[in-house]
């Protein structure tokens, strides 16, 4: 008997949406189509808040599964074998398709769910049958109902039954763009890619802006940021990244403003440039990787001084996270190893020895008034360069 594979996709919190639910589902379908476009054709069937997706070429199923695990809006997914709703077929699938994949495990449990209550066996009975079938075929596996290394699950649904043993947690969150758009200030550090990922997870479609300070920063530093952007594309499919050269502005600031205000004023300048770009792109919010108290420019009053430089809301998803927590996320999205490459970034050029921790807005503005800031910002903005990024092949 031959059984085709499919990917069972459980929707996340969007199933809880009310009147808007269709819009979210449509967005998720589009994201799934975008994620699988480079892999190959597929067909879907959606029932009972679960999508069964079948690749036209079965050999593409693993690659599709990998990509779908990073699509926001999906709560869980598994590679499953659909079959007719009768016990002999279900057990045949377990023996032929599931058992050969269990060689590397030490313990298992069987699980069964039945949304079709007319199925002749109860969930408990079905579970026992499935468990006995696995146990008989795999004497090396012990049963562990609390911490099994693998769970063999039978789901009896309205039209078909599905058997799987590879359920993974999805990226969760909300489909791309369902919450709007945001412009991510992307440095080469650990925090900003995480901030972008966290907001993309909440349904923001991202663009990114990076500042460079050549020759104080290098081509490699820029390439590193583009690599980070490409890594984010694993979740967002694409990311338009913009780069602005800040060197002249930084030199002017170094020569004119009091050292302790340098970083803050530079930051405000970055936000002004970001605002200009965001308005041009009709993006209503900025995203930064700031974490409260992490460095001198991320104190509460420094953040307030930053906020005062832009009319746009600044989303700071890392604000309440410790560095350890941010690093954990960075490892999860595979940006950490790139972020720690030791290239100078524009924020570390001309860093003051003793930055102002509790800056007052009037004093900052008085410092800024020493310069023809509008002209300097205009000049910097002229260097704007757009680099469309997609996921690395």
């Amino acid at each position, binding site marked *: 008997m031959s059984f085709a594979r499919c990917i069972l996709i459980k929707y996340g919190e969007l199933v809880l949406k009310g009147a808007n639910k269709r819009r979210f589902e449509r967005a998720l379908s589009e994201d799934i189509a975008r994620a699988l476009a480079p892999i190959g054709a597929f067909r879907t069937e959606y029932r009972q808040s679960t999508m069964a997706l079948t690749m036209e070429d079965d050999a593409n199923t693993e690659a599709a599964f990998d990509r779908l695990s990073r699509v926001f809006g999906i709560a869980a997914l598994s590679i499953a074998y659909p079959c007719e709703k009768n016990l002999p077929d279900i057990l045949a699938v377990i023996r032929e398709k599931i058992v050969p994949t269990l060689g590397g495990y030490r313990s298992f449990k069987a699980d069964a769910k039945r949304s079709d209550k007319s199925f002749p066996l109860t969930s408990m009975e079905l579970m026992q049958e499935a468990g006995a079938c696995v146990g008989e075929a795999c004497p090396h596996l012990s049963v562990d109902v609390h911490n099994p290394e693998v769970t063999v699950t039978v789901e009896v649904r309205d039209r078909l039954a599905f058997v799987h043993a590879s359920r993974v947690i999805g990226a969760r969150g909300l489909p791309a763009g369902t919450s709007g758009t945001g412009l991510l200030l992307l440095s080469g550090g650990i925090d900003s890619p995480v901030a972008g990922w966290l907001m993309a997870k909440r349904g923001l479609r991202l663009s990114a802006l990076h500042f460079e300070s*050549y*020759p*104080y920063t290098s081509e490699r530093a820029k390439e590193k940021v583009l690599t980070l952007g490409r890594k984010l594309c694993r979740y967002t499919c694409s990311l338009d990244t913009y780069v602005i050269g800040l*060197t002249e502005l930084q*030199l002017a600031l170094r020569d004119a403003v009091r050292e302790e205000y340098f970083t803050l004023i530079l930051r405000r300048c970055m936000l002004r440039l970001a605002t200009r770009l965001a308005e041009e792109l009709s993006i209503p919010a900025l995203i930064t990787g700031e974490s409260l108290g992490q460095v001198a420019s991320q104190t509460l009053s420094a953040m307030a001084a930053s906020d005062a430089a832009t009319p746009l809301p600044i989303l700071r998803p890392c604000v309440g996270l410790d560095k350890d927590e941010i690093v954990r996320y960075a490892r999860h999205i595979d940006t950490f190893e790139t972020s720690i490459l*030791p*290239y*100078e970034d524009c924020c*570390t050029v*001309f860093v003051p020895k003793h930055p102002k921790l509790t800056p007052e807005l009037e004093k900052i503005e008085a410092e800024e008034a020493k310069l023809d800031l509008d002209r300097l910002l205009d000049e910097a903005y002229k260097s704007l360069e757009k680099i469309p990024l997609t996921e690395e092949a």
Partner: protein
Amino acid sequence: MIYLDHAATTPPCKAALDAFLQEATLGANPSSMHRAGFDAHTRLEDYRKSVARTVGARPEEITFTSGGTESANIALFGAARALKRRGTRILVSDAEHPCVSECMKALEAEGFDVVRIPTRGGVLDMDAVDQAANEETILAAFMLVNNETGAIFDVARAFTLVKSRSKYAVCFCDCVQAYGKLPVSLCALCADVLSLSAHKIHGVRGVGALVVKSGVRLVSPVFGGGQEKGLRSGTENSPAIAAFAAAASDAHDNLPARVEAIKTRKAQLERGLAALDGVRVHGGFVQAAHIVSAAFEGYKSEVLLHLLSDRGICVSAGSACSSKKGAKSPILLAHGISARDADCTLRFSLSYTTTEEEILATLSVLEELLTKGRYRK
């Protein structure tokens, strides 16, 4: 492009490329039992003879490796493991290349007692060697030419001292920067093991050699098919080895003339640099001809490096470490160069191919950049 980064790597010479291509076209594994394999083996032994001749060694004392780093790893771990029952003390200079200094950290973690010998002022501290060398000493590792400053260490004297104290000690000399610029031999350096790299002498990257004096036993950390007398298992990279042999012969046969040419350029560059405002040429120690290291006051080395690169001039920062890490070059600091100067040091490294015009053009660009003073710290 003006390429003044020959201590990092050199472009392969024509003889090397021709030899590479010829050997690559012939194919066959030197270990194969058929006729083509035997021919490949015969050619490999010819290459070995060529390289051996350049270091005054016997062909059987040459082991081909993938380069300087692998050579150092095999030598250091090989000697330490072979002699661990005789003692645990290891002497090493504090200015070694990471291919040695990182091995030392690993050996330290394995329980060896690693003593670092200062190189303040660019000179290997003989008093410290005298104090540290004892009968427990099983290994000493001193480089001949420092890769960042060009300082030449008196390794022959240090090794003689070590050997006068310990009858078992293996003396290893990293000759990667010296080879092709100074006469190098086991005998003259009083060493037991030397490491060489092909791509620093206009060979190709990915090949080097270990010169192991007959009778010295190393327990190789590399296991496999037993090639290279079991010291470096793995199919020999014959095309690269052919190129190495060609470049080595070329360098060896023309050594005096080439060194003279490099010395002339070096003197010219040093004079020009010294005449620039705020530039200090690191010196005061015996130095190899091909490296000039200088501090540019008020500039981060990386910034000047980028500005020079924009103008088509390739040099290295004295410190390859990142300023972001706050780490200065441990080698420059070990030489007693201040942290401030270490942060603004550039390394210019020359070859016999470097021309007078290239030196003049570099000096003129530097003068222009420093006069503008646009991108100071």
